[in-house]
C-alpha cells in the first residue's frame, strides 16, 4: 500500500513540475529555464519543512516519506537542470552556465535550510 502512495505522489509531483515548467516557459520565456529553477527551489523549501516536521515528530515518518520522497522528489529534478545548464552554455557561454548552476544550487540549499530552520528553530 505504501508503494502505491509513493507512486501516486510521484505521478502528482511529476505532473506539477511539467505544468509549472510549461507555464513558466510561456510567461517568462526560454532565455533561462525558470520553470526548473522554480520547482527545484520551492521543492527544496517544502522538503526542508517536511524533514523538519518529521525530525520534530510533528509529522509521521511514513507520511513524510510519501510527501518528501514521493511527491517532492519527483516534483524537483536534477537531470533536467543539468541538461538545461549545458544548453545554456551553448546559447550564452560557460560563465552564464556556471552562474546559473551555482545560483540554482545555492538557492535550493538556502531554501531547504530555511524550511528546516522554520520548523526546527521554532519548535
Amino acid at each position, binding site marked *: 500500500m505504501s508503494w502505491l502512495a509513493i507512486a501516486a505522489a510521484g505521478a502528482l509531483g*511529476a505532473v506539477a513540475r511539467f505544468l509549472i515548467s510549461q507555464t513558466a516557459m510561456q510567461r517568462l520565456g526560454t532565455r533561462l529555464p525558470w520553470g526548473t529553477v522554480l520547482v527545484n527551489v520551492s521543492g527544496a523549501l517544502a522538503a526542508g519543512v517536511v524533514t523538519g516536521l518529521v525530525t520534530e515528530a510533528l509529522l509521521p515518518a511514513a507520511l513524510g516519506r510519501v510527501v518528501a*520522497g514521493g511527491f517532492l522528489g519527483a516534483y524537483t529534478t536534477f537531470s533536467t537542470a543539468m541538461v538545461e545548464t549545458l544548453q545554456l552554455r551553448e546559447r550564452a557561454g560557460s560563465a552564464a552556465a556556471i552562474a546559473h548552476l551555482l545560483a540554482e544550487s545555492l538557492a535550493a540549499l538556502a531554501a531547504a535550510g530555511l524550511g528546516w530552520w522554520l520548523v526546527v528553530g521554532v519548535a
Partner: protein
Amino acid sequence: MLPARPRHVALVAVGGAVGAVARVALAEARPLSPGELPVVTLLENLTGAFLLAVLLTVLGRRSVADSTVRLLVGTGVLGSFTTYSTHSVELVVLLEVGARWLAGGYLAVTLVGGLLAAAAGMSLGRRLTPQAAGARSADPGGDP
C-alpha cells in the same frame, strides 16, 4: 488555461510514478547513516542526468521529435528519478551535524559530476545518431 493536453499529462504521470518508486526503493535499499555521503542520491542523479542527455540528444536529432517517449521517459521517469530537493535536504542535514567539508564535497561532486554525466550523455547521443550530423545547420555539439 493549462496548455498541456490530457494525453501529455497522463504520460508524465505514469513515468513520474515509475521514476519516484525506483528512486525511493534504491534509497531505502541502502539507508543513510548520519554524517555519511549520500551515495544513493548522488548515483541516481548522475545516472539520470546521463540518460536524459542521451535521450534528449537522440530525440532532438530526429526529424520528428517523439513527444511520447520524451514525456514518458524524459519528463516522467528520468525527471522523477532524479531529485533536487532530497539532495538539498541532505546537504542541510550534513551541515547540521557539522560535516561541512563533506557537505561541500557532496555539492561539488554532484554539480561537476552532473555536468560531466550530461555532457557524456550528449556525446553518446550524437554518436548514436550520426546520420543527422550534417543535416542540421544548428548542430548543438559543433563549434560556433
